[in-house]
């Protein structure tokens, strides 16, 4: 039996992380931020059908960047986890924290044990009864979890976009203001993002039991036009 070449664990991890980051950087980014009625998620996405943002449960939303088939698999797993938990216990027992931990476990496991890490970053957002209970969990390809306050930026150019979001950021703007601010941060100083290239959805406290609402077509034009 031949002895495999020794590669330092640091090197293995670094190679994997670089690989995942490169994959994520190829796609477009998204911004999630709090607004007066909850949380709004604004993604740069020219496709009307391949969604980056979607509903998980009554008060929980999901967003992913990177490789579509990989974050879509995570999205469906999240819906299944939430629906089974709500069915087995009560709708009130489904929460974003436990889901974020499950995602982190799975991504961490894949990062260290599988052939290739998942080339995704995901966001689990939950609105509470009160504005201060809103939560944004940002989870990286290696299972690192961040609990963000106010806003979260996912994607390749996250640092530059986050700097632009931070400039003049107010936690509780009105919906149109929050969408425009996120859009401008995504676009940067050198280009314009038309409404057709945006995918927008909000978790709003005034939306009834299922708080997730897509804002598209004429409704979006009216807000950002």
């Amino acid at each position, binding site marked *: 039996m031949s002895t495999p070449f020794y590669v330092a664990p640091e090197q293995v991890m670094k190679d994997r992380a670089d690989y995942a980051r490169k994959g994520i950087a190829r796609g477009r980014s998204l911004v999630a931020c709090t607004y007066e009625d909850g949380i709004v998620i604004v993604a740069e996405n020219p496709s009307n059908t391949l969604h980056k943002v979607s*509903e998980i449960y009554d008060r929980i939303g999901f967003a992913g960047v990177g490789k579509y088939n990989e974050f879509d698999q995570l999205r*469906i*797993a999240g*819906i*299944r*986890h939430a629906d*089974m938990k*709500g069915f087995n216990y009560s709708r009130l027992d489904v929460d974003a924290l436990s889901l974020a931990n499950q995602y982190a*476990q*799975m991504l961490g496991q894949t990062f260290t044990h599988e052939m290739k890490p998942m080339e995704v970053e995901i966001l689990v957002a939950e609105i509470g009864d009160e504005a201060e209970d809103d939560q944004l969990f940002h989870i990286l390809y290696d299972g690192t979890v961040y609990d963000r306050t106010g806003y979260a930026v996912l994607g390749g150019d996250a640092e530059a976009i986050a700097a632009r979001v931070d400039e003049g950021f107010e936690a509780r703007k009105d919906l149109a203001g929050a969408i425009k601010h996120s859009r401008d941060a995504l676009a940067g100083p050198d280009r314009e993002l038309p409404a057709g290239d945006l995918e927008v959805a909000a978790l709003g406290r005034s939306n009834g039991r299922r708080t997730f609402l897509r804002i598209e077509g004429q409704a979006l034009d009216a807000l950002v036009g």
Partner: protein
Amino acid sequence: MNLPIFSTTEDPGPDFARLAEQAGLVAQPTGDGDVLDLPHGTTCVALRYADGVIIAGDRRATSGNLISYRTMQKVFPSDRHSAVAIAGAAGPAVEMVRLFQLQLEHYEKVEGKELSLDGKARQLSGLLRQNLPAARAGMVVVPLFAGYDRRQEVGRLFQFDVSGGTYEELEYGVTGSGSIHAATVLKLGYRAEQSRDDAINLAIQALYVAADEDSATGLPDFLRGLFPVVATVTTDGYEQLEDDELRERSQALVDELVGRGLPS
């Protein structure tokens, strides 16, 4: 509870019932043992009208000759644009509704779009088929399903039998022990494209007459403020009537009967 990830061959797709079964969350009913004496819910009606459909049910659950529950709800929204009403063994019926609601929502979230109305009726039929062994042991459930078909832009309603047989009705549908009497009232009072007002009054009258003839169906209870649950399903979605409106309409019906000089 772990994150449910499946291999491509075992993936349950958008089917929540199959997912729950794989996860061991639903016990498969068996037909073994004696027939159980369980609380039963009874009469429900549904009818089409100008804007969509109306679905209504009384509030009584009985065990044999005793009233076991006075505030039972038998009419439920199954999603934004459909409703389900149940008659039969109360426990399994409510559980079936819960699973049905989740089936529709789960499909919508996984697939990103609503099931068609026919698809929804088909799902309910599947749940009934699964319940057949339990029905043999006395846990019979017979639902009514009504919804607004957004493709055809009409209200539609479906009756079922214990085995999951699905029958679309063009005018009205009934289920439960008082259904013979309720159906007669609907048959005589039904007009195509009736107004909301007339259709709601007809549904309340149908339940009243059923309760007058069938001891398992409850009359409007003015003492406790309990009235039938009545809901409309239109292009604007499922909407349940407020108690105040139901009290007024029930009172008007009683006044009319008293006015006729009928012994009450």
